[in-house]
């Protein structure tokens, strides 16, 4: 489990380079990614619900990114985009496709629905935090 969290740090760190994030911010991107994954694993162990773990993890990633954006005076997306990547349901998509390929439509429907639910949970988490954002910058105008 510790190995996974350390790997999440490096995976997010290197992913941020692919998107040309400047050198100074790479470490913070990695931090967001590994904290997000730590929270995901922790909540998953506790509740055993994939959707809920994704939701709480995405929520935490958004909050951490928001704080970092304020501290580092950077657009929030610099941290949010790489940080959210480990949660993207690539595995769900792959399993759905694999089941379709094997004509196992019951499994395909299950994984397909789960993939959409995860994507929805992540979207709602980001929307939740971004809405507070909108509120605060409307006030300053």
């Amino acid at each position, binding site marked *: 489990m510790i190995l996974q969290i350390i790997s999440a740090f490096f995976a997010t760190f*290197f992913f941020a380079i692919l*998107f040309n994030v400047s050198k100074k911010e790479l470490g913070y991107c990695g931090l967001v990614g590994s904290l997000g994954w730590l929270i995901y694993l922790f909540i998953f162990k506790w509740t055993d619900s994939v959707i809920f773990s994704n939701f709480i993890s995405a929520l935490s990633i958004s909050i951490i990114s928001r704080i970092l954006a304020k501290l580092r005076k950077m657009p929030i997306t610099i941290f949010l985009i790489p940080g959210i990547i480990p949660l993207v349901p690539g595995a769900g998509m792959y399993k759905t496709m694999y089941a379709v390929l094997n004509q196992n439509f019951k499994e395909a429907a299950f994984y397909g629905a789960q993939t959409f639910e995860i994507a929805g949970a992540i979207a709602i988490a980001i929307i939740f935090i971004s809405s507070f954002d909108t509120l605060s910058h409307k006030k300053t105008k």
Partner: protein
Amino acid sequence: MDHKLLLNFAMQAGEIMLRSGAETYRVEDTIMRILSVYDFESIEVFVTPTGIIATIDDKNIEMTTKLKRINSRTIRLDKVALVNDLSRKYVLGKISLQDAIEELKKIDKISPYQPLILISVTGLTSAFFTIVFGGNYKDFLISLSIGIILGIIQRLFINLQLSRFLADMLGGFLVGFLALLLTSIIPSTNFDNIIIGSIMPMVPGVAITNAIRDTIEGNLLSGISRGVEAFFVAISIATGVAIALKVWLPF
């Protein structure tokens, strides 16, 4: 005060941000704030992922409108951050318009990471994600080599100016095929973990995040188009991997 110069500066700042992968609402906001430095009677800005229109009008000047079409987009989050910072400095009056224009030209010329770095980073991203999703050290090494090959192929596709969707489909096929080939040669490896980890560098992270953020900010048009982009990229990758599996599995 030269209002055309100001409009040009605002549009150029917006253009660089939009080309580099900023959210549409951020581009709109930036242009709006730069133009608001002077009290024009009316300022209208309209941005979509493929173009920018801005109009300013006042009693003393001719109404001026500028339209800029955006054709190519590359992800340069460093530039988004720098232009964002520059526009803030300008709006707060910390920098003159002339200096800001010079600064903007410099930002536009900043080069991305070297291709060699990007290729090795593609490999490392694939490899570490394989561990994150539960792979062992052998899976790690296989993903590393697949990722590096993927990185080289992606550079090639960019030089050939291949469409994004075709490139991702071929990338998915390559990942699937190599994963199946290498796991059949090397024992105690798992092709599921390797495939899931290795497709990660192709994941449309910017499109997904920006689709959500643009929608919540009321930029519905951009939200939908980025969402569709993300969806089709995902389908392209899955199709590529599926073709590889279909070709391989009967053997």
